[in-house]
């Protein structure tokens, strides 16, 4: 009945949907991809690694809850910091968070590939993942490793989907998350009752030369698994009664996620042992499942269910970070902190098209990194941005004491200060660890920050010259 093509407006999300968005991001690729890596560094203490990370993030979760209830803006951490800090710090925050999501995308894509190969292997289509070599590309005389090719393809697919149509709604995310959680519950159920499960695998908790301190670098590496509530706060405007539901969604999703992590990691270590888990790397959970699940009719090998879960989770998590990264770039464009075209909705697709494309470029480039480097960089940037978020709470309380805060975090200022201290501690440990093992990731991180500062002053100069020539309303540049 109208003279032009239309799209449907977005649905309103309830508490359940908001919680599921957070859980969907946290119980996704992290648990499947990073468990093996954590076991490699910390041994059976990988279990403690996830628990302690949950505790550390809880402090930042409180800060997020207070900010989200008081500042009526979607856009997550960046939007809050923009409200509180001056131009440069808020730009850096957006720049860090944007990168953290993009590299997380690379990480999830890299986690998708071996699990997908494992799935094909379970059905007997290909050889075990470790034996699949490079595929020779006929035209150019170079072999591309299958894993990187698959990861690249996955990113390309989801970016095209998101660029061409509005993001999957919250209710779809709810269904996806429910599927992921049920698959993990099946995994835990079979695992605990299987004869392979043995508490002996946890003894000693710190085998060989590993000590309690080896938990710390593993915590830094797997920290990215807990970035879910930034994602909740990026969609706040679509949530019903946000001042109550957002803090609740943040706390519930963190608590449930922690329980699921503990159960899954316990089963994985208890059955496969930390050494076996470490050897399986990104496909750790999937291999643990293959080892103890019974065979089903039709589906075949019981492990196939879990491998399917891993493939599904990495893809949905990848989808979530494609949306999240483009939203950060979109907000920055709206605020005049990135090119204005980033902050515009495409006239035909109705999506923040250029923000998605720009995010895709970095995400695709990060696919060539080793999984561990991608995880390291993403964790590093999330840690730093969480430091800034905790700082915002303190700065806002000092500068605007009379602001209405429907949710106030308890024991101010101890909680945000603890949040800052713990995040900084992990950042420090991670940097020291990277100096020893992964200088490339560190250099790339420093390079990205340097590039950001260049971009900031470049855009600012561009804005000033425009203001000088025309009588344009270039207010956004200097507000």
């Amino acid at each position: 009945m109208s003279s032009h093509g239309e799209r449907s407006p977005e649905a309103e999300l309830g508490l359940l949907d908001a919680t599921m968005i957070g859980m969907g991001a946290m119980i996704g690729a992290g648990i499947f991809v990073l468990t093996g890596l954590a076991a490699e560094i910390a041994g059976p203490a990988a279990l403690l690694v996830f628990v302690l990370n949950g505790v550390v993030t809880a402090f930042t979760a409180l800060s997020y809850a207070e900010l989200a209830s008081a500042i009526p803006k979607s856009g997550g951490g960046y939007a809050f910091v923009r409200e509180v800090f001056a131009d440069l710090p808020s730009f850096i925050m957006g720049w860090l968070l944007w990168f953290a999501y993009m590299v997380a995308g690379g990480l999830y894509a890299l986690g998708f590939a071996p699990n997908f190969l494992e799935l094909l292997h379970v059905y007997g289509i290909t050889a075990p993942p470790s034996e699949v070599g490079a595929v020779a590309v006929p035209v150019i005389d170079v072999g591309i490793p299958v894993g990187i090719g698959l990861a690249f393809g996955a990113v390309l697919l989801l970016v095209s989907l998101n660029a061409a149509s509005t993001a999957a709604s919250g209710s779809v995310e709810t269904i996806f998350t429910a599927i992921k959680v049920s698959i993990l519950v099946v995994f835990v159920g079979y695992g605990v009752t299987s004869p392979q499960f043995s508490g002996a695998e946890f003894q000693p908790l710190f085998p060989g030369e590993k000590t309690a301190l080896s938990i710390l670098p593993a915590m830094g590496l797997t920290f990215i698994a807990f970035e879910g509530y930034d994602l909740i706060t990026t969609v706040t405007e679509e949530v019903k009664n946000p001042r109550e539901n957002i803090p609740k969604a943040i706390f519930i999703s963190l608590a449930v996620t922690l329980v699921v992590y503990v159960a899954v990691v316990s089963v994985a270590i208890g059955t496969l042992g930390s050494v076996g888990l470490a050897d399986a790397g990104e496909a750790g959970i999937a291999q643990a499942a293959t080892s103890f699940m019974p065979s089903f009719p039709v589906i075949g090998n019981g492990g196939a269910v879990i491998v399917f879960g891993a493939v599904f989770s990495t893809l949905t998590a990848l989808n979530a970070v494609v949306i999240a990264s483009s939203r950060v770039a979109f907000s920055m464009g709206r605020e005049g902190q990135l090119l204005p075209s980033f902050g515009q909705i495409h006239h035909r697709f109705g999506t923040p098209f250029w923000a998605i494309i720009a995010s895709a470029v970095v995400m695709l480039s990060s696919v060539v990194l080793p999984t561990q480097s991608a995880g390291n960089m993403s964790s590093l940037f999330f840690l730093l941005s969480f430091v800034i978020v905790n700082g915002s709470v303190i700065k806002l309380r000092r500068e605007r004491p009379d602001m209405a805060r429907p949710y106030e975090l308890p024991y101010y200022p101890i909680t945000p200060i603890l949040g800052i201290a713990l995040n900084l501690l992990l950042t420090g440990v991670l940097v020291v660890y990277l100096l020893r093992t992964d200088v490339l990731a560190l250099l790339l991180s420093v390079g990205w920050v340097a590039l950001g500062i260049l971009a900031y002053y470049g855009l600012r100069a561009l804005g000033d010259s425009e203001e000088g020539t025309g009588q344009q309303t270039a207010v956004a540049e200097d507000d």
Partner: protein
Amino acid sequence: MTQDKSVLIVGGGRVGFQTAELLADRGHKITIIERDPATCEALTDEWMATVIQGDATNPEILAQGGLEKADVVAGLTGQSGVNLAVCMMATRLSPDARTVARIDHGDGAGYKQFVDAIVYPERAGARVAANEIVGSDVQTLADVTGTLDIMEVLVEEGAPAAGKRLADVRFPAGTLVISDDDGERVAQPDTELRPGRRYVVAVEPDVVDEVMNLLRG
């Protein structure tokens, strides 16, 4: 170039509240200073503006409203004196900010030397305040019985939909472009959204922000 404005509204009562609602729907950033705790609670429930509880004639409270970042300061309380005082303080502390004061008596012409715009709620209500605050490029034309907005929008140079034919632009559901440029004809699929021209658009509140992004950038 983003068209969003930072607006500081003093007074979250009937007029302030509805003005904030209209402006927030259009994607502007709103901060409200309100003295009454109960009204503040009602405002935070709506989650459309940052709310500061306190007396805006106190400079410390006014500063907490983010005065240095505000593009517009609007005094919309029921007391003309408070509104004027706030606008004059704002002019002093942040000379570039546009000031709008609600005046409930007299013809108001004499106040023009102190504030940039004057609003009479009796005559015009909150919609006029919203129009004054954003300037003349987007004007709400009519009060429809429900919540539908019918507005005249100037298409900005460089906006995503500028220069495109209506058939090529997928507006969100709840949008209807009504007029051809400058209101000569009813819009057709091949009507071009020419930058610098005005179009009458009917929009449901949920999607005003998105439509503004398409037409104004």
